[in-house]
């Protein structure tokens, strides 16, 4: 199995390099909204002194960290897989003795991510010198813990997106469903506004959803804002959500493949 992943990596890594320019466009598009939130909230906080206790530096550190977490935990499985179901290219992969979504697509996504992060690092450094954040609250332990937290977040996000992508077995409208899902992430992950600034109701709902695992939770972890209890809670909820999303994905996938093979692969 290790060899499969190694070779998949070689193939997908080489493949991603073929689309460097495309990747740069994607990266810029991706960066627009978080940087805009960063700029807007910082200037509001500067004008008012603070927003509900959030100072300008709080916003800057929050969004600078969000940029990293977003890169690590987000996924593009809908774009690398959705069309395969719709145009039938999946057939070639289904007759191979490996799971198309949990091997090839996953590695493709990770290769994409690594290349994106390589392109993104210099931009982050530039932003760092532009906004001069004060990261004095960050401790090494938080940063180290954030790595497994973000990896966990990535897998939860990947499995949920994979389940949504597999809806393409039934509907061609899967892209709009995924857009709706992105709106939920925007709202409940802490991407649009740091969660504590959201109405109480949204914060309460967010507690029961997996989305803060993608951003709010690892951000707070890195910034050293969580108690030990909160850290444990986060990991436990991450593991539970990974279980739920895996079961959900497997169920959608199994039935989807059955349907695919019923209507004419």
């Amino acid at each position, binding site marked *: 199995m290790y060899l499969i992943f190694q070779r998949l990596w070689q193939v997908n890594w080489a493949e991603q390099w073929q689309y460097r320019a495309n990747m740069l466009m994607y990266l810029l598009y991706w960066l627009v909204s978080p940087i805009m939130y960063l700029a807007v909230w910082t200037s509001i906080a500067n004008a008012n002194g603070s927003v509900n206790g959030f100072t300008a530096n709080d916003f800057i550190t929050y969004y600078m960290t969000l940029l990293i977490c977003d890169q690590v935990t987000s996924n593009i499985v809908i774009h690398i897989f959705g069309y395969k179901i719709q145009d039938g290219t999946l057939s070639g992969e289904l007759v191979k003795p490996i799971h198309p979504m949990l091997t090839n697509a996953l590695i493709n996504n990770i290769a994409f991510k690594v290349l994106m992060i390589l392109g993104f690092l210099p931009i982050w450094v530039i932003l760092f010198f532009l906004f001069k954040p004060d990261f004095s609250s960050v401790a090494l332990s938080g940063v180290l813990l954030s790595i497994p937290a973000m990896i966990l977040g990535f897998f939860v996000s990947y499995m949920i997106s994979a389940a949504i992508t597999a809806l393409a077995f039934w509907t061609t409208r899967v892209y709009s469903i995924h857009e709706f899902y992105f709106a939920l992430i925007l709202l409940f992950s802490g991407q649009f506004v740091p969660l504590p600034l959201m109405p109480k109701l949204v914060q309460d709902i967010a507690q029961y959803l997996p989305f803060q695992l993608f951003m709010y939770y690892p951000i707070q972890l890195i910034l050293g804002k969580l108690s030990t209890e909160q850290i444990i809670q986060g990991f436990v909820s991450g593991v539970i959500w990974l279980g739920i999303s895996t079961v959900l994905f497997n169920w959608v996938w199994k039935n989807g493949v059955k349907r695919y*093979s019923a209507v004419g692969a």
Partner: protein
Amino acid sequence: MSPTITVQQLSKTYQVPEREGGFGAAVRSFFKRKYKDVKAVQQVDFKIEQGEVVGFLGPNGAGKTTTLKMLSGLLHPTGGKAEVLGFTPWELRPDYLRSMTLVMGQRNRLSWDIPAADSFLLNQAIYRIPDDEYKKTYKELDELLELEPLMKKPVRNLSLGERMKCEIAAGLLHRPKVLFLDEPTIGLDITGQVRIREFLREYNKRTGATILLTSHYMADVTALCERIIIIHHGNLKYDGGISDLSKKIAPFKLIGMMLTEPDSHDLSKYGEPVQNEEDAAKKYIQVKAEDVTRVTSKLLADLPIHDITITDPPIEDVIEQAFNQ
């Protein structure tokens, strides 16, 4: 030993959404879709023994590809049973997938943007092929298909024929015991077709693999297969030796004649006149097999004939006749 492929009463009915053109119909179909049943394959039975090369023939839409997809596991049938190498294909068991291959025309097993060599190595890992076995198989494939010069170029820079060679090779690296080939020579020029055919024949001889192939090119079938299965409108029309086909389906012979003043004789009273574009100098008639001797002696007695030949009708015509029955 039990047959490699057993197919019993295999059927597949597609439900195809159907609506009239126009806005009203579009709105109605949004709420209540009408479906039409399309019977792609109807209660087909056949058995294929290990090492056989069988040609699967039929016009477009006859159900060939549907049958092939069911046997490779991509499609669930609506009825009947199929067993290949002891597996039920549509359970998609990894052990089954590792012992067969499906090559579908232009569908790529290879990654478009990278050299085929990388995709080959990936397949080696996926199919768990030990290094020494991989090297051996690759060497054999290279001998037969001359792959080496193609390996380093990105697949998208290969010509259609080169790509097809690589596709087929990629599908055979794991030495599958059963090969399902859907139009393996489609889009290739004559040399390319001949190459692939020779390769498949050699592969079958060397490995004893069972091959089931569909093709539009009759030459593929006549060159490779001793047995053919003809399917039309989802029904099995013929299953047997290619040489018996003309006896069973069209028990006719062609009589070709060189005549002095070829256009001044009425041949229709001897048999049905047939056009032969390849050999316009000769006149041809088609007669029933049992009448050949009688008609020939009559012709020789009646007409100024320089030369006479008696042949089987071309296989294309025979199959055409089978479809029209």
